[in-house]
């Protein structure tokens, strides 16, 4: 049980990275980005493309090459998100298209992006590195692989950085103001288009990083991100759309519930757990834990 909770925490940290980006985009642009999971997939495969080995850092299964590959994934996915916004979402925004049309366009982008991954790498599973890793034993029967500790640490550093960015910088303030009310932010002299670009860049690079971490935790396959979209949405809505710390709490609830549920039911139903949580919160408190309005 304790083991499942700890694995749940590792999964939560990956979900959190994706969900924070998703909730920021949701908060500022007001539409559900169905392509977010597939952005994670792209991140994972960009890292696969650029990862060159580079020995081993301590007991980890990979070397410094992975750090570079992670940065490459964040950079590419961040830039790609901005580019997609310029090419697809901004023209639709300018036409005053409804949020539903934007969500549908994002689903189209999700299909395009995933198909490109299929075309590039095929449907087979891929791994960053082969070979077994010995797990460290901790009290309460907890066993953790060094890689998993690395995932948790990386996610923690990223979440803290995003928090500092949002609450300690002028850009973060502008982002929060735009999320609150875009018209009012414009009146106050905030360049909201710049805020939109920054949001995509941050959300995209976090998604890219989340994809790499997910690839380290298990393996790469073209559907990996799309399957992840339910936990991402569940975490964002649970925490309250537009609220980064809400997404963090939501990610913890979803991630731990999914793993602990395997104690009683088949692991095949993990995404269903995320969905049941989502269904329950929509019934009981649709605005989520920290949300203000729907």
């Amino acid at each position, binding site marked *: 049980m304790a083991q499942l909770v700890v694995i749940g925490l590792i999964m939560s940290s990956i979900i959190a990275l994706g969900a924070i980006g998703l909730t920021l985009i949701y908060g500022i642009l007001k539409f559900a980005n169905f392509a977010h999971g597939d952005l994670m997939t792209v991140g994972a495969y960009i890292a696969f493309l650029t990862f060159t080995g580079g020995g081993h850092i301590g007991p980890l299964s990979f070397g410094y090459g992975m750090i570079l590959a992670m940065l490459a994934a964040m950079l590419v996915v961040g830039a790609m998100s901005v580019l997609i916004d310029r090419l697809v979402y901004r023209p639709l925004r300018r036409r005053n298209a409804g949020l539903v049309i934007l969500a549908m366009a994002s689903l*189209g982008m999700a*299909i395009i992006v995933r198909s490109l991954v*299929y075309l*590039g790498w095929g449907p087979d599973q891929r791994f960053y590195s082969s070979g077994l890793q010995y797990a460290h034993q901790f009290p309460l029967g907890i066993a953790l692989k060094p890689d998993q500790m690395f995932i948790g640490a990386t996610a923690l550093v990223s979440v803290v950085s995003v928090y500092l960015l949002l609450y300690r910088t002028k850009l973060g303030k502008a982002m929060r103001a735009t999320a609150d009310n875009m018209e009012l932010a414009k009146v106050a002299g905030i360049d909201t288009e710049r805020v939109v670009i920054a949001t995509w860049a941050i959300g995209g690079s976090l998604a890219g990083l989340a994809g790499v971490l997910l690839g380290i935790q298990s393996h790469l396959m073209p559907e990996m991100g799309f399957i992840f979209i339910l936990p991402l949405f569940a975490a964002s809505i649970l925490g309250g759309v537009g609220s980064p710390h809400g997404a963090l709490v939501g990610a913890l609830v979803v991630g731990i519930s999914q793993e602990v549920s395997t104690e009683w039911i088949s692991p095949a139903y993990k995404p*269903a757990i995320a969905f049941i949580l989502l269904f329950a919160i929509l019934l009981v408190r649709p605005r989520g834990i920290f949300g203000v309005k*729907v």
Partner: protein
Amino acid sequence: MISDFLNPSYLAGFLTLVLIYGVFAIGLNVHWGYTGIFNFGVAGFFAVGAYTSAIITKQPASGAYMTYIGGLHLPYVFGLLGAGLACAVLAFIIGIPTLRLREDYLAIASIGVAETLRRVFINEMWLVNGTRGIIGIPQPLHGLVDQADYKYVYLAIAAVILLVVYVAVERGIRSPWGRVLRAIREDEMTAAASGKNIFAFKMQAFMLGAFIMGIGGAMYASYVRAITPDTFVPMFGTFLIWVMLIVGGSGNNKGAILGALAVWLIWDRTGALVSNAQDPRIFYVRNLLIGVMVVAVLLLRPKGIWGEEKRVSVYAGKEPERAKAKDEAAEPLASVVSTAEEAGDGGAS
């Protein structure tokens, strides 16, 4: 490329699938085109309809590799109606928490339902035979003609069902009830202010569309005769149907059928092109094409090939004579799919 269609047997199979997908596109049109219900879980209704009809029309399970519930061995019509009812009940359950909320919450929830159901169908062997699927689904009027000619019989049956569905939905949409749906799609607040119970109307439309999708699922099951959970992956079960509707023209049932024909033609022909490819990756060019079509239609031609008619009441004149510019100015936030021209009509309920 085209020569396949000179073979009448191939053409009959092709057209049958177009008609079945036409039924799905009309069902989705009731959801999205007329009411603005954002259902991304068509595959879930597709699957529930197909499996329900299979267990209603088939004999009870027998043999070592067959386990499923039901097996009522009832005629095809009961399969159709049972499938429709099962989907309507499913829609009712999904609708309770989501139809009162923002549209995109229903989209997320419906994706979740479709994916969860698929996992249940895969993992619960006792329910509908897991990944082995159900084979030998009965076909209506099977003894009537020679086996080789049966496909023409089923083509005729599919055509009759599509016609019935089309006429029924057209009548509904051209009634006051249908105009309320379009008013809700355009502006929920205004419709609510006119004394309409938004939730009840949306629920009715959601259940009606789901019923139609269930019928489509039943038609599909008896056409292919063998279904597995893999049939109902989102790409094939949901997105293909969405593309058909928005390419053809959402808000127009003729457009929906035209979209089913156009998109299935592309899907079928590109399938023939890639089927001989050495590299399995080539297969995914078709999926890419579907995604590109979604984005391109939304950006370049949001109304689709055959957009919505401006006026649908049989009692009204042919062309609205109102000052369009005034209506347009009054509704700056009207979505792009619905055009400003019919905004005045939508609120007239």
